[in-house]
């Protein structure tokens, strides 16, 4: 992993010699086969733990080495539990009509022309762990265009940008916790985690609950994508049933005749607010 281990070491007592022109150390790029083997091993360990009586994990472990960027970016100390009923985190930010505009939920109408690609509707309900709707909260999405390119300067994938598509949307949930976006189906794209690494098509989602502890950023995938088994980000969710919860279903009833194909994706926010009384009930 570390470049340092590839650099010739010189004992500090030795006099400094003229620096020879060494070739730059080549970073070790893992193959898909190596990454897939690491994923399989991680899944096997997780399955063994469940067999031994551990609760299945709903979320990815913070250290998931097949996704190389996690290696230096996860804490090694255990998280410190906070059980204070007065904690500020049991409340959270609120948003309203001033925070969204009418066009935000239709990613195909944000420019003068129509974006290229397959027009889709993505809709679903957001609830807490008790099944109660998350009402009037902010939902944010971002995604690549139909060719698999983000409108981000650091995305160097040589696929075309679409002048009619930025790929950013927002909405507030309705009284049933419902959300709905019109967009185009994003393309798969390559990345540099390992050799020949490709992300399955996905839409990034950012969600707020009634408590800051319910905050969720995640990714929605499309059913039947052949790239699923190769992707260390989706596979970082080690529990198969939990992984399935990240995949939308095609819903013919959501398809709009002669307009768009419909995908349904319901979201359940984690967090201890599920044990708090509903602010709209009782009192």
């Amino acid at each position, binding site marked *: 992993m570390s470049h340092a281990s590839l650099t010739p070491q010189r004992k500090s007592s030795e006099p400094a010699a003229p620096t020879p022109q060494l070739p730059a150390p080549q970073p070790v790029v893992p193959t898909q086969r190596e990454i897939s083997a690491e994923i399989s091993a991680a899944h096997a360990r997780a399955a063994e733990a469940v067999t031994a009586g551990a609760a299945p994990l*709903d979320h990815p472990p913070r250290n998931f080495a097949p996704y190389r960027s996690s290696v230096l970016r*996860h804490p090694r100390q255990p998280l410190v539990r906070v059980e204070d009923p007065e904690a500020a*985190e049991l409340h959270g930010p609120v948003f309203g009509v001033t925070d969204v505009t009418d066009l935000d939920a239709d990613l195909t109408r944000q420019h003068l022309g129509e974006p290229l690609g397959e027009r889709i509707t993505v809709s679903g309900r957001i609830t807490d762990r008790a099944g109660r709707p998350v009402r009037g909260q902010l939902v944010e999405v971002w995604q690549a265009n139909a060719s698999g390119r983000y409108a*981000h300067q650091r995305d160097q994938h040589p696929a075309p940008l679409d002048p009619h598509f930025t790929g950013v949307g927002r909405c507030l949930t309705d009284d049933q916790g419902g959300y709905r976006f019109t967009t185009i189906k994003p393309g798969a794209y390559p990345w540099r985690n390992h050799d020949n690494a490709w992300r399955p098509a996905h839409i*990034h989602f950012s969600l707020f609950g009634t408590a800051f502890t319910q905050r969720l950023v995640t990714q929605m995938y499309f059913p039947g994508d052949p790239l699923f088994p190769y992707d260390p980000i989706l596979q970082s*969710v080690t529990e198969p049933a939990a992984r399935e*919860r990240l995949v939308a279903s095609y819903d013919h009833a959501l398809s709009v005749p002669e307009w768009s194909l419909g995908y349904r994706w319901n979201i359940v926010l984690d967090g201890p607010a599920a044990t708090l009384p509903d602010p709209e009930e009782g009192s």
Partner: protein
Amino acid sequence: MPRPTPSQTVGPFYGYALPFPAGGSPAPAAHPGAVTVHGVVRDGAGVPVPDALLEFWQAAPDGSLTGHPGSLRRDPVTGGFLGRDGVHFTGFARVPTDADGHWTLRTLGPPAATPYLSVCLFARGLMHHLYTRVYLAEPPADALLDALPADRRATLLAGGEGEGVYHFDIHLQGEKETVFLDFDR
């Protein structure tokens, strides 16, 4: 009970979607009580993290935890951002780190009952966000701080840098690793 939707990394490309103008300045303009808090996010090798996103949530100075809409206040004419309204305190801030891993927040000091800024941290490489807290001053008693050993406790205390300016670095891993929090059940 339904099972929760798993977390997935924010990835490297949220930059044109999540940050918004004045995201790091919840303090109403010209408020005399505004404080500045800033710092650097570092990884386990001590390298600054240039693609982290920090969110802050806190009580208003009067103790209210209801928050207020309008953090992202929008212009219905152009679809752009108007910035905050300059009057209401939303309690919410969102700041991406810059190319040096540095972030700056301009907010109002929290009340004595909840004397901290709650932080939710996202970044490429984080499978799941991390929560921590910034205490601008040592409270006389605090259930979380008082349960921590001294060196760990220190990671949650901001350093004063003069009138109304505080410094708070976040270390994702390593010797100076910041205390990260778990609120589940």
